[in-house]
């Protein structure tokens, strides 16, 4: 009982003065990620909103080293940075690839899949604002069914469902995969911290609302994020080793209409089409829910714990054998 309060790590790594639009979800995502990871972090950013948000040369907002790289290369650059740090004997610094949905779902998918398959040891955060916002709101494969973008105008809104990136990554059997939302900062921070303590490839999919791209008032950013969770549009889950699903928060199950009605990008939708979206959401939810461990109550938002370091990935075990280690060492020399 009493009021819900958040206990966040006090240190502010992210600096003010960045170039994010007012009410930006991607920026809150970065703020929480840096709070969770601390200053011993290197961030790799491909072309995305954050290429701009971080600030123009010679300024940077992140407060940690940021490597700006090409659109399709977030994952491969992060692999390189991690390898470089390893070569220097720095096994402490966390490498974080921080990409938008365009650079993750579409353009960067190949590099992402490769890094996931090799189980490279870094964290990949995709801040999903459901379109190419930085370039002027063009649809991506993360844009939801029925949404307006400049390339899916209201006369022919997006006819395809959102790509299920979580299932794609789960199929890679990576050790840790989670979804998070800016409306549940404690949950997001605990998941990122958990990811930090796990070796191998970690993917966190963050729901990051975009006021200009979704057409809503910036003060509603958190409210909309919350409704996305409560309406089951964006469930908060964790997947261990690609197979063990855990629900982080049981949604209240508010109608999808409530979520849709406060966003201008869905304004053209009539009741019938909202009904189709609701059906789609319900269907996806049922599919996901059937995979989740039944004892969801034991895993409240932010309280789930990862039981040590389980290595189900055969590749990892092979790499970790003594002979393999020697090989790596001699190669480094």
């Amino acid at each position, binding site marked *: 009982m009493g009021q819900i309060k958040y206990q966040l790590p006090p240190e502010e790594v992210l600096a003010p003065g960045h170039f994010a639009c007012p009410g930006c979800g991607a920026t809150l995502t970065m703020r929480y990620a840096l709070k969770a990871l601390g200053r011993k972090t290197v961030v790799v950013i491909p072309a995305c909103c954050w290429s701009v948000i971080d600030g123009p040369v010679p*300024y940077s907002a992140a407060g940690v080293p940021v490597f700006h790289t090409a659109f399709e290369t977030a994952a491969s650059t992060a692999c390189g940075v991690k390898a470089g740090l390893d070569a220097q004997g720095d096994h402490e610094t966390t490498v974080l690839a921080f990409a938008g949905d365009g650079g993750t779902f579409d353009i960067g998918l190949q590099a992402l899949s490769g890094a996931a398959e090799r189980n490279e040891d870094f964290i990949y955060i995709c801040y999903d604002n459901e379109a190419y916002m930085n370039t002027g709101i063009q649809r991506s494969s993360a844009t939801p069914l029925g949404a307006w973008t400049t390339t899916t105008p209201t006369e022919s809104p997006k006819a395809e469902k959102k790509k299920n990136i979580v299932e794609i990554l789960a199929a890679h059997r990576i050790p840790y995969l989670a979804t998070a939302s800016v409306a549940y900062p404690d949950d997001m921070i605990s998941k990122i911290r958990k990811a930090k303590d796990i070796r191998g490839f970690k993917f966190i999919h963050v729901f990051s609302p975009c006021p200009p791209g979704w057409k809503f008032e910036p003060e509603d950013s958190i409210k909309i994020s919350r409704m996305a969770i409560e309406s089951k549009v964006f469930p908060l889950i964790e997947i261990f080793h690609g197979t063990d699903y855990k629900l982080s928060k049981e949604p209240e199950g508010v109608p999808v209409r409530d979520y849709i009605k406060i966003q201008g990008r869905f304004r053209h939708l009539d009741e019938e089409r909202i009904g189709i979206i609701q059906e789609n959401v319900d269907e996806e939810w049922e599919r996901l829910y059937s995979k989740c461990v039944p004892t969801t109550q034991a895993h409240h938002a932010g309280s789930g714990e990862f039981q040590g370091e389980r290595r189900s990935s055969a590749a990892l075990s092979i790499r970790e054998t003594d002979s393999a280690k020697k090989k790596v060492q001699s190669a480094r020399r």
Partner: protein
Amino acid sequence: MTKYNFSTVEEMPPLAFSLESTRMIPTGSWRHVRPVYRDKNSPCHITCPAGEKIPAYFELVRQKKYAEAWYKILEDNPLPGVTGRVCYHPCEAQCNRAGYDGAVAIHNIERYVADKNLQNKKLPAAVESPKSEKVAVIGSGPAGLSCAYQLSRMGYRAIIYESDHEPGGMLRYGIPDYRLPKKILDKEIKDIETLGVEIRTDSRIGGNVAWNELERYDAVFVAVGAGHSREMETPGEDLKGVYSGIHFLRELNAGNVPKVGRNVLVVGGGNTAIDAARSALRLGKRVTVLYRRTRADMPAVPGEIEEAEKEGVHFEFLVAPVGLSGDKGKVSEIELVKMKLGDPDESGRKRPVPVKGSNFSLKADTIISAVGEEPDLSFLPYSFLKKGIRLLVDDDYTTGVPGIFAGGDAATNPNGTVVNAIRAGKEAAISIHEFLGWRSRSNGASHNAVTPEEVNTFYFPHGNRVKVPTQTIQKSKSAFSEVNRTLTEEQALTEAERCFTCGTCLHCDVCMTFCPDVAISKDESGEYVIDYDHCKGCGICVEECPRGAMELIPEGAREPAEEVD
């Protein structure tokens, strides 16, 4: 940060890189609206006639600082143990939680705080330095006690003249024990005396004390209440076995149980009628309340009516007495006429009109008439302006005579409740203070309260309102033992946690948590500071504030003054 000085192009790294923080960039210039912290009034505080600072003392309760919470209440109301029991708590009807999962049980917390401090001998000190002026207060009911108490806090000598043998007025002689035990009243009156108020009992102005004696005082507050029962104006009212409600309750409260027959009829629909009916029931009688309008029109507090019904009081609506007849000088029968509702009268309620030829009679051996009370103002030496039966006073409680103020039921008290009398006493004290040449500290507070829409209910998990422990009449050891119980500490704390604390910042950090521009921080004293050089005015902090203690104002507008009392 390391400064790099490159003397040749070759020395420069192959990539462009940034070493300065964006902190240098004043993104605050993008802003067209500005968030500000602005405490606002809560609806309960604005609604409370006594003006109790409810969110403030609730916060103290949550911190288990019960003495401090009590002092907070005492700033506005010297009788929390009384009002915690008998107040009709209009605050709860306006509670922003009402439409969410039930209003917070404010009056139960008030009572808890008062009862928790029953043994507390350490009273708050006067707030202002002693002054030479003396003020007389006529009547020691809630209005008189409240006025004398506030004057005493302001440093005046306040002397109360009470015609009865014991102080308290209607609180003592009008409210039965099962609603307000005498020991609670005695304790709170004693506290008022300890603070410096002198109460002279058995002192009737115009009786054993001459009006002239009051001329030594710098001001007088008339708060004699309305202790005189109005008559039914039906023949036979002087028969034996016919009591006025006030007289009946008075005798009972003084310990002289009046003689009542087995079949008691109470005429009237106000609080006196209900109190008399429930009291008669406790004497083991069959009791019926007769009221000339409908149940919804009854001026009595709805909760009291419900409790009376639960205890077994019968009700007859739309009937009015026509006459009483007796046997050997003792009442035996009442003749009634059925009523129907006509056009609305000046009170806004539909006027009851008799239905011709519908007369009927009921047997009765006791009739209690409680059709209204009026003040007895015959002691006043010169003609004061009156409105109907009451003294006419201005909004500042002045009568036409300089230096003489009036309030409570004797004057134009809006609804004749204890808490409104307490308000009258408090406000009259401020008026007297100003009359005596001082400037009052009141700041003309705004009456805008936080609306339910301004509360972000996401932050408040649902929780049911506390169920107040009661003791039914059937189960109680003594018929007149108190019906409603005090909450346990656990119940009080749980209930206090339900309070949204509308409009008062509790430093919960939600604003800071969700700022994308990292523009909110805390200074050494724990207060929030907004960095307007960087705040872009997105408004998330204002939207997310759980309790409406922030506001967005247009950029360039002057920051509004605080609105709270």
